[in-house]
């Protein structure tokens, strides 16, 4: 490597008009890939037995990489494929790899429906589902259904998560709160979600309120359970250290307990969001006049299997998208707090 570099520098000196070329090791870095490549084109006239193409690529790559290093002081970040990280942790590989199975499923679906192996009444073709989507969209229903369902999920999720955080904090932080509330909340948690539906409809009617409340119940329990447990299990030694340095009450909470549970709180939110979509369908299946759950039950009653497929696919895509949003938050939080 040393002799190579020296040789390259020599040829640069003689073969290039560029006066800025310095001497020694730093020269290729300062000049950049272009100059090295040019120098290498004149290189093979010398005593280098290796094929010029390979040499050029190697040199250019190392030159291109080196100046970027100082720009990343941490050295741990960086997601492009230019470094030596294993294939499985590169971003493009993850995206392509994650899309492989859905694409394969789509292809298999297409093949099965065009060969007629399964009757269309059992398995509509992808085209039929697409046309059903276009049809609903033209009538202005698709956007409406998606919008109303998403709205219900997010409002219900917001309320459920908020109350879950509060209840989790009370039960996780105070011994008295634990004694008073956790048996009751545990019993309420044990009630299956659908059992609430008749009661909520009787109390709140079949409007938005009953649905949002049902979704809130669904989002509440993962957050409550995880927040209470993780607050209870904050490292006692850190707590003692915090107290020994004069922290107590709200400042102890803000300085030690809250940061310690941030990653698990966000994991809880992620779980709660998935649960919210689950409860959305439960709410809409039973009593509603719009939304994706309504689309499901209505299509089931009228035998529109293409729309059933459409609704299921939409639920999958929407659930995954909202999960990815919280996933981004989670990644940030783990970097910041863990």
């Amino acid at each position, binding site marked *: 490597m040393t002799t190579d570099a020296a040789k390259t520098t020599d040829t640069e000196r003689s073969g290039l008009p560029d006066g800025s070329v310095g001497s020694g090791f730093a020269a290729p870095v300062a000049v950049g890939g272009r100059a090295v490549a040019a120098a290498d084109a004149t290189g093979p006239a010398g005593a280098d037995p290796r094929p010029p193409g390979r040499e050029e690529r190697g040199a250019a790559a190392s030159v291109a990489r080196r100046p970027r290093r100082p720009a990343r002081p941490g050295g741990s970040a960086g997601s492009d494929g230019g470094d030596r990280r294993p294939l499985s942790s590169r971003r493009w590989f993850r995206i392509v790899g994650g899309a492989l199975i859905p694409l394969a499923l789509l292809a298999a679906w297409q093949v099965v429906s065009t060969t007629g192996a399964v009757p269309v009444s059992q398995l509509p073709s992808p085209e039929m589902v697409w046309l059903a989507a276009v049809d609903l969209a033209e009538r202005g229903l698709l956007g409406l259904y998606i919008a109303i369902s998403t709205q219900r999920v997010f409002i219900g999720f917001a309320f459920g998560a908020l109350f879950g955080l509060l209840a989790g904090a009370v039960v996780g932080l105070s011994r008295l709160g634990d004694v008073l509330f956790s048996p009751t909340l545990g019993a309420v948690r044990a009630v299956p979600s659908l059992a609430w539906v008749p009661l909520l409809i009787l109390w709140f009617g079949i409007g938005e309120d009953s649905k949002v409340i049902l979704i809130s119940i669904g989002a509440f329990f993962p957050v409550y359970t995880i927040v209470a447990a993780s607050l209870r299990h904050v490292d006692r*030694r*850190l707590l003692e250290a915090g107290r020994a340095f*004069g*922290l107590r009450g709200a400042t102890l909470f803000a300085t030690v307990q809250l*940061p*310690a549970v*941030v990653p698990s709180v966000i994991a809880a939110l992620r779980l709660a969001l998935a649960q919210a979509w689950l409860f959305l369908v439960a709410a809409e299946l039973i009593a509603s006049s719009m939304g994706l759950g309504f689309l499901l039950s209505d299509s089931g009653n009228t035998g529109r299997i293409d729309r059933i497929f459409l609704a299921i696919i939409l639920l999958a895509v929407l659930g995954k998208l909202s999960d990815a949003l919280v996933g981004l938050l989670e990644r940030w939080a783990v970097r910041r*707090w863990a």
Partner: protein
Amino acid sequence: MTPAPAAPAGAATAAPAAPVALRGVGRAFTAPDGGTRDVLRDVDLDVDAGEIVAILGPSGCGKSTLLRIVAGLDHPTAGEVAIDDDAVRPYDVRCAVGFQEPRLLPWRSIERNVALGLPRGTGRRDGRAQVARLLELVGLAEFAGHRPHEVSGGMAQRASLARALARNPEVLLLDEPFGALDALTRLKMQDLLLDVHSAEPTTVLLVTHDVDEALQLADRIVLLGADGDAPGAGVRQTVVVPGHRPRDRGSAELAELRGRLLDGLGIDRHGAARGIQATTTIPHYPY
């Protein structure tokens, strides 16, 4: 915390070191079977202001409990502890504790962890200057922005020491602070502690199970242990360490003292007791 007009920025107005007095201190824990188990019994100890006292004792004899009682992290079931003739309160502000593990908050930088030790009501600018000075003192100025998991165990322990010093304590309580470090790092940390003590001569109560560490650092060594079959540990022996710090690690006088202390800890010294001359010189290579 009024800024003295002549003082340069960051120069701490060091709190005066305070004497510690323990009178008949006892601590009993409730055993799983409902009874009580005495850990400490009738501990009497006076520590002068600015003195370094090492508490030495076998594992599980209540050394850490004693330290925690002085810090106000635990309470005695008998007797009383006073700092400067004033009873110790829970989480006493006059004390700062250096724990066996660094116990740094993993999501905070070293700098912000040290700042955690600053007394309440320290101004932002004063606090920052104080933290910078302490990081300089323990040799961590370059690593101020690092997270605890990004530095070595010894560096984390130094940060922990800096955090304790940031509290500007009248009494510094160190609970086997170097116990988890490798042997060489431990020696360096001992020297660092001596530097720190000469820069800020506070009262230091140091719990250790390392006889050499006690001999190297302390003015006096208190040997804690059970007396015969009676439950609970008390002060068995108090040894004044001769000479001034820093002491020669190879001194023959200290070696003799080490032998006696080990004997007090119930360790066979394998030497004179078995008729082997203690004064044999080690031959030089080649023999």
